[in-house]
């Protein structure tokens, strides 16, 4: 068994545990909403309930949307159907089915999943502390038998190890089982799905074209206002030097020195523009290499944690690069952070980028910080963009992109 396998397995189990815990969270909501719905239905018998029914249905949609958002973070995006359109809304019926499943089975799976690791710890560490508790409490977490001597205590420890193996084996399927009703019932049915998809693609295509035009404008600006101005300065200085040549060769040499400086600046700016379009290192080496040079150039101390073996489509990598470049520009300009971390992962066929900083937080898409540009670029690739930035920090920007290969 290689370490790679062990690490992979451990990560799968921890991921499953995280899913199940998250699922337990929405299941708690589901239980509450289900209870409220039942009360409302009961009240309908006396008439008052009809007034409360629209609110209750909106709550069903709200908790379903929460689950959709949660599932979309782990797998393919599930698009919500929008506001509730009365009792005849077909999506609503499917949501009610899901609500029943998730409030019962989902809740049970989540609760069990959380007790399993606790039981493992309890049993595995039993020989260390069994003598310290009253004999009536000295038994395995599963409560098979009371342990009265050392052999009993070690037997409990063995049970703990067995429970560990069971936990490792069952957690991933449990997570899948908990998510399954949501994936089946909360996804729009095929017709609605396609219509929504078309609407979404139309919107993201427009956004892609916008982003493209904005990018061209930026390049045009930096060429005109930077590089071209430098070159004009070179011609002006050379012109001046030529005129000075006859009058005073020393002055003309001085002017030529300045012309050379200007030419060198033009080259440096041209390099900058080229790099901002598509960094050569991205094409020649890899995305992590390109991100390394970005991280190194960032004035805030920056750590890069990249674990991707395979390449993605060029446009996807370029977008990931752009996202990190913009995010680091924001970190440097606005966050007052002392450290930032870039994490790059491949999760099945998605490329996940996360940029975290320990700054002041409070970032929003409205303040013209380039975050809306990031969102447009990401959505144009059918990717997902999320930003959490409470006042006081930390700021976490998460982007996932379909790899496109």
């Amino acid at each position, binding site marked *: 068994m290689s370490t790679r396998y062990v690490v992979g397995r451990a990560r799968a189990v921890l991921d499953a545990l995280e899913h199940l815990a998250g699922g337990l969270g929405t299941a708690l909501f589901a239980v509450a909403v289900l209870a409220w719905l039942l009360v409302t239905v009961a009240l309908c018998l006396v008439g008052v309930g009809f007034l409360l029914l629209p609110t209750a249905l909106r709550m069903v949609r709200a908790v379903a949307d929460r689950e959709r958002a949660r599932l979309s973070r782990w797998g393919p995006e599930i698009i919500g159907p929008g506001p509730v359109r009365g009792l005849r809304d077909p999506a609503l019926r499917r949501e009610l089915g899901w609500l029943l499943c998730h409030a019962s089975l989902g809740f049970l799976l989540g609760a069990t999943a959380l007790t399993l690791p606790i039981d493992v710890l309890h049993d595995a560490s039993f020989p260390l502390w069994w003598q310290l508790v009253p004999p009536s409490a000295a038994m395995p977490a599963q409560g098979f038998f009371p342990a009265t001597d050392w052999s009993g205590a070690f037997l409990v420890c063995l049970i703990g190890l067995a429970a560990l193996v069971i936990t490792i084996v069952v957690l991933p399927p449990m997570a899948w089982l908990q998510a399954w009703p949501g994936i089946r019932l909360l996804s729009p049915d095929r017709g609605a799905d396609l219509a929504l998809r078309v609407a979404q693609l139309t919107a993201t295509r427009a956004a892609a074209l916008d982003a493209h035009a904005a990018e061209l404008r930026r390049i045009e*600006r930096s060429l*005109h206002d930077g590089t*071209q*101005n430098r070159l004009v*300065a070179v*011609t002006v200085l050379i012109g*001046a030097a030529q005129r000075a040549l006859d009058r005073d060769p020393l002055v003309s040499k001085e*002017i030529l020195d300045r012309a050379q400086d200007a030419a060198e600046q033009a080259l440096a700016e041209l390099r900058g523009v080229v790099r901002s379009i598509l960094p050569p290192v991205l094409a020649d080496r890899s995305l992590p290499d390109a991100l390394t040079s970005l991280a190194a150039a960032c004035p805030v101390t920056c750590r890069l944690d990249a674990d991707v073996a395979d390449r993605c489509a060029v446009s996807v990598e370029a977008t990931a690069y752009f996202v990190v470049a913009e995010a680091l520009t924001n970190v440097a300009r606005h966050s007052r952070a002392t450290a930032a971390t870039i994490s790059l992962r491949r999760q099945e066929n998605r490329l996940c980028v996360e940029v975290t900083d320990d700054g002041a937080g409070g970032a929003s898409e409205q303040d013209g910080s380039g975050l809306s540009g990031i969102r447009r670029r990401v959505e144009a690739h059918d990717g997902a963009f999320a930003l959490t930035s409470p006042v006081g920090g930390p700021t976490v920007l998460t982007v996932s992109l379909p790899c496109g290969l």
Partner: protein
Amino acid sequence: MRIVIAEDDSLLREGLALLLKAEGLDVVATVANAPDFLAAVDEHGPDLAIVDVRMPPTNTDEGIVAAVEARRRQSGLAVLVLSAYVEQAFATELFTTGGSGLGYLLKERVGRVEEFLDVLRRVAGGGTAIDPEVVAQLMVRPDNRLERLSARERDVLALMAEGLGNSAIAARLVVTDGAVHKHIRSIFAKLDLAPTDSADRRVTAVLRYLKARTGAR
């Protein structure tokens, strides 16, 4: 000649000032944005302003807006507009409403110092200067009446549109003043324009003609 320079790129601004000072011209102020430019014009009352089109904050046409305002405040102020790129649509807009003492050039023309100094003197003296690039843009569209012109007449028309006077055109084409005069009369006749010898009124007439032609398409 007292000159104010408005250019946001510091290297270019200083380079331009250096060049003009070395030529014995009096650069009274160099500024980097439109409000400072207007203040400098008010303070120094210069003969000529050299203005970059794109300046902060929006980097679009601040320079033009400021130049128009400066000419409103100080009538007779000659303005030479410099730009990283030139557009005929922009030029015709500027000149058909503008009057005399106006120039519109690509920035890199500054490097040809001799010609640039000529342009400065011409514009400061109430004349006109239009970038050859603009003229070329105006003359690319095919037109029956333009096709009636001979090749040499088209050369003369282009130089006329740039704002050059008869003797400058003659020098550029290496012909006599009399020959240029003859060409111009012939051009005006073929284009149905009222003949005039004043260079800037001629530019306006030619521009109107070319503009009407491009505008009609």
